[in-house]
């Protein structure tokens, strides 16, 4: 039987799409919004607690800048391999994807190690006072994101070395994973400024 012309034929459409054309992007962005909101609530808590006391940090030393700054640099630089991996994925270049993912992993390892030193340099414990509590929570929350993103990227890297790596969909996953990596880095900037400079400037 003959259909009216209005029928929509989609047989020729691809089985994946990058960026806001695809579903994965929307999912990733939604989760970024959720986690971003959570970061904001903790940051708001930090400044709210700041207003409750005359001196900041209350009765403890400022955190030392060294390791935090080192880590910030590592994170910023890690955007380069991340960007290249993302780009390689968007033009389906399996070889370069593999290469840059591995490099990104190396950076990931680096900032996880440095993060350990950061905790040591905070000069306060979570149960010393409310300041210590909120600082440790901020750092802990962000470290969780670093760790999960690191492992997530790790799984993807392994995946790209298997036969599944040849599936076009995976390149979308790589691209969106890159987006999430940017988010983790971006969310660190306000936290870095808060944890390390709020005690000095406020």
């Amino acid at each position, binding site marked *: 039987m003959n259909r009216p012309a209005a029928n929509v034929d*989609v047989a020729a459409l691809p089985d994946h799409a990058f960026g806001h*054309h695809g579903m994965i992007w929307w999912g990733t962005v939604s989760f970024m919004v959720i986690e971003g909101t959570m970061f904001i609530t903790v940051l708001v808590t930090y400044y709210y607690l700041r207003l409750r006391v005359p001196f900041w940090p209350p009765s403890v030393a400022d955190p030392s800048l060294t390791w935090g700054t080192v880590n910030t640099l590592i994170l910023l630089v890690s955007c380069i391999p991340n960007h290249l991996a993302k780009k390689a994925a968007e033009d389906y270049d399996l070889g370069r994807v593999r290469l840059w993912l591995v490099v990104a992993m190396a950076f990931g390892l680096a900032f996880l190690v440095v993060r350990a030193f950061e905790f040591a340099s905070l000069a306060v414990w979570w*149960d010393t*006072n409310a300041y210590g509590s909120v600082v440790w929570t901020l750092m802990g929350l962000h470290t969780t994101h670093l760790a999960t993103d690191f492992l997530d990227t790790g799984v993807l890297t392994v995946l790209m070395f298997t036969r599944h790596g040849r599936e*076009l969909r995976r390149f979308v996953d790589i691209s969106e994973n890159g987006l999430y990596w940017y988010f983790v880095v971006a969310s660190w900037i306000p936290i870095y400024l808060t944890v390390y400079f709020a005690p000095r400037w406020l």
Partner: protein
Amino acid sequence: MSAAAARDEAERERRALERTWAVPGGFLGWFKVSDHRTIGKRYIVTAFVFFILAGIQAALMRLQLAIPENTVLGPDRYNQLFTVHGMTMMFLFAVPVMEAMGIYLVPLMIGTRNIAFPRLNSYSYYVYLFGGIMLYAALFTNTGPDTGWFSYVPLAGPDFSPGKRVDMFAQLITFTEVAALAVAVELVVTIFKLRAPGMSLNRMPLFVWAMLATAFMVIFAMPAVVSSSTFLLLDRLVGTHFYNPAEGGDALLWQHLFWFFGHPEVYIIFVPALGIVSSIIVTFTQRPAFGYTALVLALIATGFVSFSLWVHHMFATGLPLLGLSFFTAASMIIAIPSGVQIFCWIAALWRGRPRFQTPLLFVVGFIVIFVLGGLSGVTLASVPLDLQVHDTYYVVAHFHYVLIGGAVFPLIGGIYYWFPKMTGRLLNEPLGRWNFWTLFVGFNITFFPMHIVGLQGMPRRVYTYPANMGWTTSNLISTFGALFLVAGGVMLIANVIRSARSGALAGDNPWGADTLEWSTSSPPPVYNFLELPVVEGRHALWERSADPPVVTGVRSDKREVLVTDVMDAEPVHLSDMPIPTIWPFISAVVTAGFFVTSIFTPWALVYWAVPIFVALTGWFWPKQGEEGDTLEDKQAIPAESAA
């Protein structure tokens, strides 16, 4: 080709779809299921089970309060009951059941074959289920939270709430928020990316708009309470000082964070109900929605304004009055969108030819009750007035009017409305009318006197009261009314059980409704639609041409759905829905294990890190039978269509 050939063709297509979208069988299959209809139904049923449990608790409380100085329940048990009642209603019934309606209906309403991220969907269901089980295991082992669903610190803090009762509160929040946030993400993506071609935003059914607004409110409101309850858990478990004034913490911090979530929360419950009301009114007046744009804008406005009201729960804390006045104004403003919607609905009823069947009865009942609740809400927005009635039974009356009247009545109406679609059988109509009148009368007898006793100075959350205060009569009346509510609940359950087995067959579209879910069979087949529809107007089924156009070229040998663009729902690409697997269930189990363990020791994170990682990897690792196009196929695809 000949008609016969075409019929065979269609039949072959149908068989193929049956095979592809088949629900996994067997014992394990039960845990693998990931289609939105099954999960949605499980969500709804579970939520109603919790609703019944919370109802029983309410009945017990009414029993205790029936007469002054009553000793049916001691303070210890009573406080656990009112706390768990509140938590269950908020976290285990109202929010989940509304999202569940979305899970079941949205994909059908927008003409697609499954919800986005179906595995996340089943994961969220199990996390929610385990959370509920944890809370009730706690209640039955005398570990029920006893500091109120708002659990103000320092009462809920380590110094004044020994044991693990409050930790159960904090962790239940984590459970339910994880589940709710997951569903919110699915709904946003489903609504934005899986709409049938032609269903541009301005043609979306009002229910879908409501679910979209709700999903966004969930996304922005719930992180606040996740943070605050985590702080509480940390204070109790590892000695942080977030809420310890002596060490720079602050008791009001909890209230700010909690109510920043807590106020949107009530709109998260209420807005989907508005969607249900609009759908029912459109169908039972058999007229296009009156003031569609106004209604949509009202939903969005409600969503926005609901984030600027939280302080009106804190008028008595002694914050500066100037600030309070702002929140008075904001709380007044939110009455405007609600008003607009009420007016539109009344206009729609005025203009249309309403058929007074049970669903519409519940909607009219909703208007009668909700307007009163809304008006008492307006009185509460006034700082001086609130200072007198805050934390009295007046407030109890108010929020039961807006939550039961504003959300549960439409919900039950919605159950009567969509039950035929979900089961293929109509609920019994006469019994439905009885059900409505019992609930309506019972509700008013129970909750109206609470306004009075509140204005007579009876505070909330008291396990008993003296005889000489003149509160006795009102309380006795309330308890008497509760009997009607119990009866009404029983009627609903009886009706559902009887009709599910022997109700009249519904057919595809028993009410002559306008939205897409009524175009497929009742109950819908595993693939929802034999041919994905193309939408030609705002009221899809009322505005479609004689021989309606459909989407062709979607493969039936794999779980393929059509992804369209956000604004105009133009086809963008095809996407394979993941096949059912056990991993989301396993992930939910380890998540639950982690949450419960972390009530008792901070090392939980260490113990469960590896299991969680394994489970999630197992979840995301590509499965047999869902391979997509590869680099090799790409060479084959012509350039222009690949771009």
